[in-house]
């Protein structure tokens, strides 16, 4: 399991030097030579030596498939830790098409190097879904399909992080009719720990938080039944929403920008999906606590939930029947069924009186007779 992710497997520079039979003095000599080589003042020697002695930063390969890159964008918006600190101090982001300097085969080579050098040690992050339609040609990088790349990179990964709704549940491109057969990661890779971090995108600090958890505690965060870290996905937005008192009081925004909206009433009736959405928005909020959808007057659209594009419309509370067109919702069907039932029962009642006339009259006769014959 992940707990074994520690220094033992991947030696630090110092350990490597030591193993080759050099002592600490040799090592320091090597360090000062190297610092001189890259033009560092002497005072920095100690620092460099420390950097080399401490464990290597966790290598990370971050793949991009069918995505909109909002997950990467959200990641760089993290305020604590800031992304520069993550990149320089916490992990070694050896491959990500969005930020890496190298292009083309040099980029591919960077990924290969990490896969070889840190076999079984690197974290694989995946942003985007994998199209399984038409043999995978709907997403190709360097002439390979995304599936080929994913399988290769997953093979020796320590653990996998599925960023965002795309990688965890297929997101918008997997909405009906899912023309490219966009598929989330857990359906393609088995036998590896997969951490799902859904959301479209996930909150930047949540993404950074998952990384920090891995690096700082050397273990996979505790996951819920759907594979999401409990630290961020254990509560419904509805249960952490500051508008909840209005919900409980029965005070709702009836239409956008009405008087109730100005007063900050609950957005339930204009389609808020907070009651069925697990995310940290109500607690952590977005962009370093600036706001979150509900605070800015729009209902939660359920962006971290599986299939949220097809399970009902944005502004309707009524649950619609996916696949029956947008007008059809369960209650309309129910009302029609109720009407039909009522009519059928009325028909049945009429028929009963006609077809079972004999039976009924004989019962009636019997009753009348008794009434008639009884003295009191």
């Amino acid at each position: 399991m992940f707990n074994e992710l520690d220094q033992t497997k991947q030696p630090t520079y110092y350990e490597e030097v030591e193993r080759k039979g050099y002592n600490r003095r040799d090592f320091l000599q090597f360090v000062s030579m190297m610092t001189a080589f890259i033009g560092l003042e002497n005072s920095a020697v100690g620092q460099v030596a420390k950097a080399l002695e401490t464990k290597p930063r966790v290598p990370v390969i971050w793949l991009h498939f069918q995505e909109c890159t909002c997950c990467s964008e959200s990641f760089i918006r993290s305020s604590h830790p800031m992304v520069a600190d993550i990149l320089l101090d916490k992990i070694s982001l050896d491959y990500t098409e969005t930020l890496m300097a190298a292009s083309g085969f040099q980029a591919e080579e960077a990924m290969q190097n990490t896969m070889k050098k840190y076999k079984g040690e690197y974290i694989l992050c995946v942003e985007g879904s994998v199209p399984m339609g038409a043999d995978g040609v709907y997403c190709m990088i360097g002439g390979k399909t995304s599936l080929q790349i994913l399988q290769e990179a997953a093979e020796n990964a320590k653990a996998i992080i599925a960023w965002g709704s795309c990688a965890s549940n297929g997101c918008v491109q997997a909405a009906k009719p899912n023309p490219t057969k966009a598929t989330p990661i857990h359906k393609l890779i088995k036998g590896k720990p997969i951490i799902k971090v859904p959301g479209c995108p996930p909150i930047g600090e949540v993404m950074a938080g998952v990384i920090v958890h891995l690096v700082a505690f050397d273990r996979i965060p505790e996951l819920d039944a759907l594979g999401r870290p409990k630290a961020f996905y254990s509560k419904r937005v509805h249960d952490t929403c500051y508008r909840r008192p209005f919900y409980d009081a029965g005070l709702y925004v009836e239409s956008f920008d009405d008087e109730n909206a100005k007063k900050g009433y609950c957005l339930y009736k204009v389609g808020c999906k907070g009651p069925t959405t697990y995310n940290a928005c109500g607690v952590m909020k977005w962009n370093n606590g600036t706001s979150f959808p509900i605070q800015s007057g729009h209902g939660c659209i359920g962006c971290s939930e599986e299939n949220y594009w097809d399970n009902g419309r944005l502004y309707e509370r009524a649950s619609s029947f996916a696949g029956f067109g947008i007008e059809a919702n369960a209650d309309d069907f129910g009302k029609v069924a109720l009407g039909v039932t009522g009519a059928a029962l009325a028909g049945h009642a009429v028929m009963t009186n006609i077809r079972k006339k004999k039976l009924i009259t004989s019962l009636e006769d019997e009753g009348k007779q008794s009434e008639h014959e009884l003295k009191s």
Partner: protein
Amino acid sequence: MKTKYLHVHRLRRVYVWELPVRYYHWLNALAIIALIITGFLIASPLALQSREEATMRFTMGWVRVIHFIAAYIFFFNFLFRLYWGFVGNKYASWRQFIPTSKKFIKEMWTVFKIDILMLRGKEHISVGHNAMAGFIYFLTFWAFLVQCLTGFGLYAAMGTWWLPKMFAWVPPVFGGDILTRQIHHWSMWFFILFAVIHVYLVFYHDYIEGRGEISSMGGGWKFIEEEVFQDEEHHTPNKPTN
């Protein structure tokens, strides 16, 4: 005068629904009605206006509280009925609900022909419920199950007690709360339709048979003609063992 009396059947009083079954039945009916009303309100709340502070009001909170209290009553009552299916009298036995024999199915068909298609034929007399009714109740039990699973599944995230928590696995089966809640909502319609048809049919049977069908859920008694027993004319979906 005397002769006329002879035309009248001698009725035998049969204790069909034991007290626990009657309690169960009405508790169940009340809980379901409460759940449907509050469920509707949860799905589409009324447009209320108030000058009061939100914290002074708990309208929707009460609706949910009632839903959850009714849900617990409904759930335990349901469990109790399952238990009573094994220890209760023969009319309460689980055998009367589950079509395990050819005879059961044949009888359902017979009842269907007489009650629904209204084909002419010999009157079909059951002392407990008839085969078709039994089977419909069997289906309602499945609906009860679906409703309890999805309901407590949704509730698991809010409650702290271990009991609802035991249902925490349910939403993930449907990929999350969204679909779980929709299923919970859709299957409410099954309850509504059942209740309407069921009440109608109870009245219907009382009306055309005159054996005290409606009151039987009150006092427990049905009134069956002596000849029916003498001629062995009554039916039962499955032969009781006891």
